[in-house]
């Protein structure tokens, strides 16, 4: 199926690099679906690249045809709400669990929201992702590329090459590389190299 007929979904847990991937696709010449309602802030200085209608996927999927040939950010838990009437190429961002949770906790503090205790959340995320990947494996409408945020920062060229191949070479790899700013890799776990 041609890429123009499919919806490019950037997914993962919040703070796993989904905004970075959206920015990379944008700079790589890919059309993106965003309403820019959520403005850049200290947690995402380059912007969130979100689309408000995504939050209401369970109630309303009528906008999905507009997303064909474009990239849209959809957090992992909402993938279950995507109807089988479309085809999706999913770039699924993965990141060291401690880094994800440290980053989420910082963001929750800034938003004055409570955080689920770290260990509880770590186990919950493991189970959530395990169940999600089992489910995705049974769905023919999804094609998945798992991308490690940590590898992306450390070996950008190799990861970008995989992404470009996944998207049938429809993106400009030079443009994508330009979106990576290692200075924004702030919530680094002790085991990760500088």
């Amino acid at each position, binding site marked *: 199926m041609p890429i123009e007929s499919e919806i490019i979904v950037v997914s993962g847990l919040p703070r796993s690099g989904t905004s970075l991937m959206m920015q990379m696709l944008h700079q790589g010449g890919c059309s993106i679906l965003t309403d820019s309602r959520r403005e850049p802030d200290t947690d995402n200085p380059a912007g969130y690249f979100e689309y408000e209608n995504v*939050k209401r996927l369970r109630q309303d999927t009528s906008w999905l045809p507009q997303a064909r040939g474009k990239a849209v950010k959809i957090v992992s838990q909402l993938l279950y709400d995507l109807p089988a009437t479309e085809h999706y190429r999913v770039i699924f961002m993965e990141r060291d669990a401690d880094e994800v949770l440290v980053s989420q906790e910082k963001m929750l503090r800034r*938003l004055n929201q409570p955080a689920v205790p770290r260990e509880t959340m770590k186990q919950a995320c*493991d189970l959530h992702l395990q169940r999600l990947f089992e489910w995705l494996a049974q769905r023919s409408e999804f094609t998945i590329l798992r991308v490690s945020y940590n590898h992306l920062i450390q070996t950008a060229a190799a990861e970008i090459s995989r992404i470009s191949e996944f998207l049938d070479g429809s993106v400009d790899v030079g443009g994508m590389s330009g979106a990576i700013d290692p200075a924004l890799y702030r919530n680094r776990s002790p085991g990760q190299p500088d």
Partner: protein
Amino acid sequence: MGKLNLEPGLYERAVRAAASAGYSSVEEFVAHCVENEIKRQSSDEAEAHVTEQLRGLGYIQ
């Protein structure tokens, strides 16, 4: 190893279901059912925690 008592009617239905699904014994069938239920409960609880955190972060309604 623990033992469970099942009401006779339920036991008979379990025996039939186990045979129909190809289990080698009713014990194997019951153990598998219990295992699946525990997995489902853990998974539901995990999804609830993820939902709570994602809502706080503003990613879901």
